[in-house]
Structure formats: C-alpha cells, structure tokens
C-alpha cells in the first residue's frame, strides 16, 4: 500500500470532565490511506468523537503523534492548526452547522475566505460546488429556507471548497430522514469514487456497509479494523 495520508500513532487523550480526569483515547494507532472510505463505529463513550476532533485538528493529543499529509501536526500551535483545518480538512457535521445569516453560496465560501482567497475566485468555486451537490436553484437561499437534506448538501459542498486531503463526517445522516440520508450517502459514494478520502463516524450498520473499511473502537482503542472489497 502507498504511504498513509493520515497516521495516528499511539495517541492518548485525557481531559477533565468536571473534576474527573477522563481518558478518552488510550494509545490508539491507526493509518488512513488516500482514497479510502472509512467508517468509525463503536458505543458512545468509546472515543469516536475525540478521535475525530484530533483528526480534524480541532484538538491536540495529550501524547502520541498525528501526521497529516506528511507533516506532524500534533505539536503545532493554534494558528498553524487553524491553517491546517482551513486548507487540508473538510468537515461535515451531524447538525449541518451552517452559519444562519449567510446564504448558500456564502456558507460554501467560508473556508476560502479564511484562506484569504479573493471574493470573485471563491464565489466561482462556490457556484461550481453548489451545482455539484444539486443546489443551483437555491444558491441565494438562507439555511432556514432549506430542508435538512439540502442543508447537509450545502455542508458537503462547503467541506469540498478547500479541496481537502481528508473529509471528516460526524454522523452526517443522523438528523436526516432515510430518503435525504441515502441522498447524502450517495453524494459521499460519488466523492469516494472521485478519489476523496472519507472518514465517517456513524452508529448505523447500514451506513457503514457502503464503506470499504470499518474501524470499531472500544474504550479508547481500536477493537477491530476490517476492510471489505
């Protein structure tokens, strides 16, 4: 296999919950390769979200190493992590997390805005992406004027805007009805076919069946890591 696009090596993460020290990840190691479609599963409290936060550079491991695109990002400072998030990572959240006062195009543009890309350029990219997720006739709409499925499609378009190394999705179909959910999942399938690396946290076996690799976590460690083909 080729070199991993993201490598998590013996990562531990502890944090204080109230006055109790919780150890969410206990020496977790896993490699992700380019073009993979990975789902991460496990009971709640197993460390899925913590892992996703570290993969997304929203959080830093207490110990261990996280290498993204050949660069050790586990020791970067806050500004550098922001830059990494803005340039190499695309996020799709369970609750869409669109900015309410911005319309569809402006929401898609946000990551490009923080990279300092000129507006005419980012606007063109946003239009292109809105078309790609089938929202060409909703480009000027605000999030509250869209259905859940449409909002999540905006979120997917936004995740693609910065042409990321990996796309991280946190239960992207959790808030959607089955039709919109399978809509979104087929968008993900398409993306994966186009060579995007997807890492998705999910509870649903149905969803994880679409993925080429399923990682099950338990108590902050990898319990099972299986590839299907």
């Amino acid at each position, binding site marked *: 296999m080729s070199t991993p696009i993201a490598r998590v090596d013996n990562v531990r993460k502890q944090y204080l919950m109230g006055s109790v020290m919780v150890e969410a990840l206990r020496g977790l190691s896993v490699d992700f390769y380019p073009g993979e479609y990975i789902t991460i599963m496990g009971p709640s409290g197993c460390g899925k979200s913590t892992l996703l936060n570290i993969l997304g550079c929203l959080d830093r491991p207490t110990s261990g190493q996280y290498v993204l*695109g050949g660069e050790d990002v586990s020791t970067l400072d806050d500004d550098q992590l922001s*830059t990494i998030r803005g340039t*190499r990572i695309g*996020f799709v959240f369970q609750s869409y997390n669109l900015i309410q006062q911005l319309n569809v195009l402006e929401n898609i543009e946000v990551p490009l805005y923080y990279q300092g890309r000129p507006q005419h350029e980012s606007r063109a990219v946003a239009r292109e992406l809105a078309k790609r997720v089938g929202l060409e006739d909703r480009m000027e709409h605000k999030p509250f004027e869209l259905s859940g499925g449409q909002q999540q499609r905006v979120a997917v378009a936004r995740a693609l805007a910065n042409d990321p190394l990996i796309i991280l999705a946190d239960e992207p179909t959790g808030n959607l009805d089955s039709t919109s959910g399978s809509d979104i999942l087929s968008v993900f399938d398409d993306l994966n076919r186009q060579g995007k690396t997807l890492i998705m946290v999910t509870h649903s076996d149905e969803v994880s069946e679409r993925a080429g690799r399923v990682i099950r976590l338990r108590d902050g460690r990898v319990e099972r890591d299986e590839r299907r083909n």
Partner: protein
Amino acid sequence: MNGATNLRSRIPWQHLVVDVERVRRTMQLGLKSLWLHRLRSLLTGLGIVFGVCSVIAMLAIGEGLSYEAQEQIRRMGSNNIIIRSVKPPEDRSSSAERTRVIEYGLTYADVERIKLTIPTVEVVIPSRIIRSDVWNGTNRIDCDIIGTVPSYPEMRNHHVALGRFFTEEELEENLNVCVLGDGMAEKLFPLDSPLDGIVRIEGDYYKVIGTMEPESERSSMGSPDSNPAAAGPARNATGAPYEMYIPLTAAKSRFGEMLVQRSSGSFSAERVELHEVTIKVGQIDDVVETWHIIADLLTANHKKTDYEIIVPLDLLRQAERTKRIFNIVLGAIAAISLLVGGIGIMNIMLATVTERTREIGIRRALGAKRKDIVLQFLIETVLLSASGGLIGVALGLAIPFFITQFAELQTKVTLWSPLLAFSISALVGVVFGIYPAMRAANMDPVEALRHE
C-alpha cells in the same frame, strides 16, 4: 493539496493587500449581522447616540453663548478701560443720613490727571449720566441722559443711525442739541422724522440732530449701580435702557452737579461730577499696565472706593477662562455618558458572543484563526458604536439648528466637536469591544461546536 506551504511562500506585500480586503469583507459581514438584529443594534447604540448628540449640542450652545458674550465685550473695545462712579457701599446703607448730600465719584480732576500723567492713554471720554423724563408734547420717555463729548460713538463702537452726532463746536458753545438712542424716536416722534424735532427735559428744550443704532453691549454689561437712580430707566425693545446723548457742557450747565431725588417723603441729594470715563489705550499690550496705573492713581486721590474699573480685555480673558472650565465640565459629562454607552455595548456584545458560540466554533473549524474572530467581533462593535456616533452627530447638529430657530438662542457648532465626538465613539467601540472579542476568540473550538 499544499495550501499551507502556499501560505508561507507568499510575497510579503501581498499579505497586506489581503488584510485590507479582509477588513472590508469583515465589515460587510458585521453590517449584515447588525442588520439582522436591527432593533437590538439600535437600542444598544442608543447610549452612544445620546452621548455624542448631547456633547455636540451642549458644546454648540456653550460656544454660542460665550461667542455672544465675547462679541459684546469686544464691542466695548478691547483697547478701552471704562471707569464708572459707584455710590460707596457704606453711604448707601445708612438710612439715618438720608438728607445729607452725598458726594462721590469721578471728577474732572481725575480726567485731567489721567490725561496728563499716563502716556499710553490715547483718548479720554468723560460722561455724565442723568436720569430724567424726556418729553415731546405728551409723549414721555424715562431715560438716561448721557452728557459726553463728540468722540463717544467712535470710542464705544456705537454708531449713528440717522443724522449725526454733535460736534466739538456744539460742545464748546454749550448748545442744546441731542441724539436719541435706539427706540426713542419711535416713541417720541411716532408720526414723523425725529430730525430737527424738539424735545423737552425739565425746563429746557433740545433739538434732535440724530439717532443711534441699537447698542447691544449695555444689555449685559450695563451695571445698574452706575446709574444715579436706584432703579434703572425704562428699557427699549432690545432690552437696553433708553439713552439720549447731549454735550457734556450742556449736561453740566442745565442739570448742575447736584442731583436731587425725592422718594416717599425722604430727600436725598448726590453730587457727582462725572459718572463714567472711557479711556482708550494706544496699544493693546499696554492695557493691563495702564489699568494698574489708573487704579493706583484713583486710589491715591479717592478716600473711598467710589468707582469701578471695567477692563473689557480682562473680561474677555475671564470669559475665555470660564469657557475653558465649561468645556472641561462638559468633557467630563461626555466621558461619563460615553462610558455608560460603552458598557451597554460591551454587555450586549458579551451576550452576542455567547449566543453565537456555535458560529464561532464553525468558523474556527473552517480555518478561522483567533485573530480572525477577534477582528470579526471587534469590527462589529466598532461599526455599532461608530454608527451610533454618526446618528449622534446628525442629531447633535440638528438640535442646535432647531434651538436657534425656535428658542432664538445663538448656537455655534465648531468643526472639531462632531469630529472629536465621532472619533471618541469609534474609540469606545474598540475599547469595549476588545474584551468580548477576545472572549470569543479564546473559546475552545470543540466546546464551541458542541454548544446549543
């Protein structure tokens, strides 16, 4: 794929260009979210609106008042020193000596001494002020009759409106000519021109040779103590007392030096040679020194302090000092109101930051650095306070206009006051916006994304 390396390899100046563009777009964003909560923004900015507006309006009123006062003083002549006879206080209160003849005030000898001994003095104008009724047929006016010399109008910056003032010849020949003060002609000669008309004062008749323009300085500067009578004479339309001018010689010979007053059975008499002496100093720099010399001279020759010295230049300086104090007080009030406004803004911005925690989390996740978040909230606060300031400036400029229109009070808006008030309002935005903005920026992105 390698955006991070791209960021590092940018040429230095491009970073600046991007920043200007970013500020512009952040401002657009700020306006958008302020507009989204229009009512809240308006209410929040109201403190600044009122603060700025009251500062400008109060400054304009203060400036207008002091401008008017300074104009009046200036019209008295900043080169002039005015000495007035004042009845000494100890005599005024002693009711037991009602029938005694009170002798006080400036004398012809004082005038001569000032003329001869002080070289900086250019002109000395003595005058007598006698209160009496002036008649034309059955029309009567109670007025101050001022006996003076021909250079009086020029010295006091008080000019003839119609006809002429009397001449040196008329003064020397002791002629019964008179010049009517503002408003008198209409009362005494309601139907025809007052020129060449005849008016009667007690048993003597005077020919009218001219009328004066309205004189505004007396309305505020005229001290009633300087009048021989306890109560001032009737006042004309502009609120100034009626005044009539006759040659000093005529005043001396027709009225004598003894002024007799009878009131409710008591009798009092005063002997005053001159009621007022106006002294013009050649150079403005010599005014203060001349003033001190005159004061010394008068102290040496008068047993009692039966005179007062009015120095318009000194009054002007006092007025300027008063204005400075007024401005300091106003500045303090302004500072307090802007402080209150600023705290109001900070309060709302803190609430806004909490309310928009999720948005902050999203922006951080999508690549916003801490300084981007700081910039966003700081710009929003500054926009809020600066637009409050702008509305305040507009109101603050409108209020003095309406005051001038409807209250007939003079106001004067100086250029710097709206500029200063506006810049301070923007500064308030920065000062009170920095804390909420820092709080927003220091949120943990993970926590912020989880916020409901």
